[in-house]
């Protein structure tokens, strides 16, 4: 699949789309496909601090609980309330279903994340095992 080029990606299968200091975070198509039907999303409250590389919430499928890892540091400004009642939206539209919006603490952190092409390659290599 062709991953949108308007954002960056992490090896934990999250994406982050920045517009100045504001950024939206979600999980990738590969992530939702691996997880299967998503039934529960647990997100931090507005005002919480995210630290790059640290967990900030969980996403649950029928069988398993998976941690969400922050692609970058920042303060949560909004969480997607739709996901509390319709978590399956993440399966249907993973790149359109943002989970949290943050104000970036250090926009430079995005530079070390993967581009769409690099992420695609990463996923393909992972699958090769």
């Amino acid at each position: 699949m062709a991953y949108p080029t308007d954002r960056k990606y992490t090896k934990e299968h999250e994406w982050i789309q920045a517009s100045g200091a504001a950024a939206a975070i979600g999980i990738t198509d590969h992530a939702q496909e691996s997880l299967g039907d998503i039934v529960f999303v647990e997100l931090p409250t507005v005002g919480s601090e995210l630290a790059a590389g640290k967990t900030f919430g969980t996403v649950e499928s029928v069988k398993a609980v998976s941690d969400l890892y922050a692609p970058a540091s920042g303060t949560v400004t909004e969480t997607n309330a739709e996901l509390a009642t319709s978590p399956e939206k993440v399966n249907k539209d993973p790149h359109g279903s943002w989970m949290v919006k943050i104000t970036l603490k250090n926009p430079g952190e995005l530079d070390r994340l993967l581009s769409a092409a690099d992420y695609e390659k990463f996923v393909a290599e992972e699958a090769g095992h």
Partner: protein
Amino acid sequence: MGAKMVDFNGWDMPVEYPAAIGCGIINEHMAVRTGVGIFDVSHMGDIRLAGPQALAAVQDISMNDAARLAVGQAQYSALLYPSGAFVDDVIVHRLGEDEYLLVINAGTREKDFNWVRDNTGQFDCTVENLSDDFTQIAIQGPKGVDVLQKLTDADLSAVKFYWVTRGTVCGLKNILIARTGYTAEDGFEIYVPADEAGSARVWKEILSAGKEFGLVPCGLGARNTLRLEGKLPLYGHEISDTINVWEAGLDRFCKMEKPEFVGRPALEKAKSEGVTRTLVGLEMVERGIARDGYKVLDSGGREIGYVTSGSPAPFLKKNIGLAYMPPEFAALGASVKVEIRGQGVGARVVPTPFYKRPKKNL
């Protein structure tokens, strides 16, 4: 078929089939509840006891009353340790005058066979491990009978629930067909010879015959959510070698009027002493999913028990669980908490089974 695979007690098994073919745990679960699904359950074990004292042997090692079985009838039962705890749960099928087939769990194949062989030496009967001889396929759901009837000359309408028959299936002769399952739905389990080519052909033919009924292949994920909704025990969770029959609430399958069977004396004693923990059904009231091993807390936050099996229930659209806790906390409607990632999340005790299949109008 592109399924997500997992190692299950040494078996390479599908957890769920791809969304691309209409599968995934939720779709598979719903297919079994409303239509039909198939499971490859060849990992299950099969032990055959035959001979003049086969019944006596079965009676001695299992807790239900096998003497009640007519030829062609089956019953849910369990093999117990002298402590009254479980070696395994089992379905006992009476295949002939002096012939019984015990179908047991995959993870306990070796243990069960050794146990049965070592504890029936005093009876005049043979004990054979037929586990590798069969491919076992479960066809489950209200339309299961319609699918299987297309593939067999046996008259399935004459086979009541928990009875068996033999017939030609997909051209294979004398196949054992049992109206049994682990999904809390109507359905059948067929036992075909284990050769790969034949088994693969049967699987494909069932998929083909089932197309018009919306049949989907189902994996371990749906197998677990289906049996959980029906409160069917899973070895290592609701039953184990440290849990006894009374704690597990399986009284009705344990016939104490049988004068002797392994575990009976301990069970007699345990009955008079009463249980210190009992298996209850929980439904999450606050947002959260109870999962296997999570702690159960009282309203004051003190640990009182643990979840044996917990998961979202796709048909009921609730998050449910089974848990052991002291009887004093187990009143229907009682409020408890389940500890989820360090937080106590509200749940309440509910009646079980969580789901019961609708009765067909006769």
